[in-house]
């Protein structure tokens, strides 16, 4: 059975160098995509027929919300791998994913509130979509805080992995909340099946921004992973060689 590729993922120096190689190309590409997407969406996409220019927050709100949801699966799957294979790199990945996810969720909530005030007439309403997003924020913060609360880090990783796995139920609830219940938040405009209800001239910059924020997420994850590896492996020879620049 070809498990070698998988076991290589558990090797800290290999991951460290692999992440470095990926970042060298991905980081500039991400910045380029973010700049092009933001300028296209904010300056060149047409205004909406009903909301005028205020809809343009979609180019930040939707990408960060989508990646905040997807990032939860990254954290939960890393947690599952850490539980099953006791892999230190997976454990680190779960810990790194928590604050990034919390940041994205907070950004989604804040941009949503800023858009809600002129559009709905209120900053905040406790509908199913917004409430389940707040629960997502608390889950991310909870995983981060739970890890810090334990002195025994093996136990901490186990507890965090179980918490993140239990929390996965929230992701389909957030996604389907606008269809299952009467909510103030509108249903999705981009659908996996059936027609998309956003004009192509507005959709393309949005898709670019979604890809850009996904790429940004991968960059942040890899940067966090590299910093965490250097920290947790600081007594090993490969880190000493790395830091002292001896190759």
């Amino acid at each position, binding site marked *: 059975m070809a498990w070698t590729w998988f076991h290589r993922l558990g090797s800290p120096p290999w991951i460290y160098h692999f992440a470095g190689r990926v970042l060298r190309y991905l980081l500039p590409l991400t910045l380029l995509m973010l700049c092009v997407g933001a300028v296209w969406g904010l300056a060149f996409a047409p205004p909406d027929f009903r909301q005028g220019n205020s809809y343009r927050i*979609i180019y930040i709100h939707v990408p960060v919300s989508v990646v905040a949801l997807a990032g939860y699966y990254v954290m939960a799957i890393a947690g599952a791998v850490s539980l*099953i294979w006791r892999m230190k790199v997976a454990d680190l990945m779960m810990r790194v994913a928590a604050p990034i996810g919390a940041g994205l969720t907070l950004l989604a909530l804040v941009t949503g509130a800023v858009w809600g005030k*002129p*559009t709905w*007439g209120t900053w905040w309403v406790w509908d199913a979509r917004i409430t389940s997003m707040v629960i997502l924020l608390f889950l991310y913060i909870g995983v981060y805080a739970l890890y810090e609360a334990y002195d025994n880090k093996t136990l901490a990783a186990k507890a965090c992995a179980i918490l993140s796995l*239990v929390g996965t*139920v929230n992701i389909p609830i957030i996604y389907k909340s606008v269809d299952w219940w009467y909510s103030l938040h509108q249903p999705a405009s981009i659908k996996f099946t059936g027609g998309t209800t956003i004009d192509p001239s507005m959709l393309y910059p949005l898709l670019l921004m979604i890809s850009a924020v996904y790429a940004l997420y991968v960059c942040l994850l890899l940067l966090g992973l590299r910093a965490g590896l250097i920290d947790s492996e600081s007594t090993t020879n490969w880190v000493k060689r790395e830091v002292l620049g001896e190759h």
Partner: protein
Amino acid sequence: MHPKRKKRLWLVIGVVIFSSAGIGLIAYGLSGNINLFYPPAEVAAGKAPHGQSIRVGGMVVEGSIQRSTSSLEVRFEVTDYAAVVPVIYSGILPDLFDEGQGVVAAGMLTEQGLFQATEVLAKHDENYMPPEVADALEKAGKLP
């Protein structure tokens, strides 16, 4: 796969399935409370409580908006195309409030079946398009 790891894999799958089932059942049991508003059909059927703060949501009926000339009072009707609820509100309406648009009104049902709103929120739909496209659709009579 190592048998120990296989056992832990099943444990992980078990945790996800059982916690999802549990939380899913709770959400299903509470679904009446998770809904943000009552549609007019449920108000007409008497499912919405009287004399207690609730929300009613639907579309503003075309031609139903009546503004007072001397105050901020406005009357309009909300429909889900099955029933109609008359609403009275005094205050500032959101920009997107218009005939044929979605609204969610918070307030109380009076004994006469009138909804006395204390807050009116606009509900945006999922359609986004440039003004020219909207004009073209309107001319063709296909505006959503």
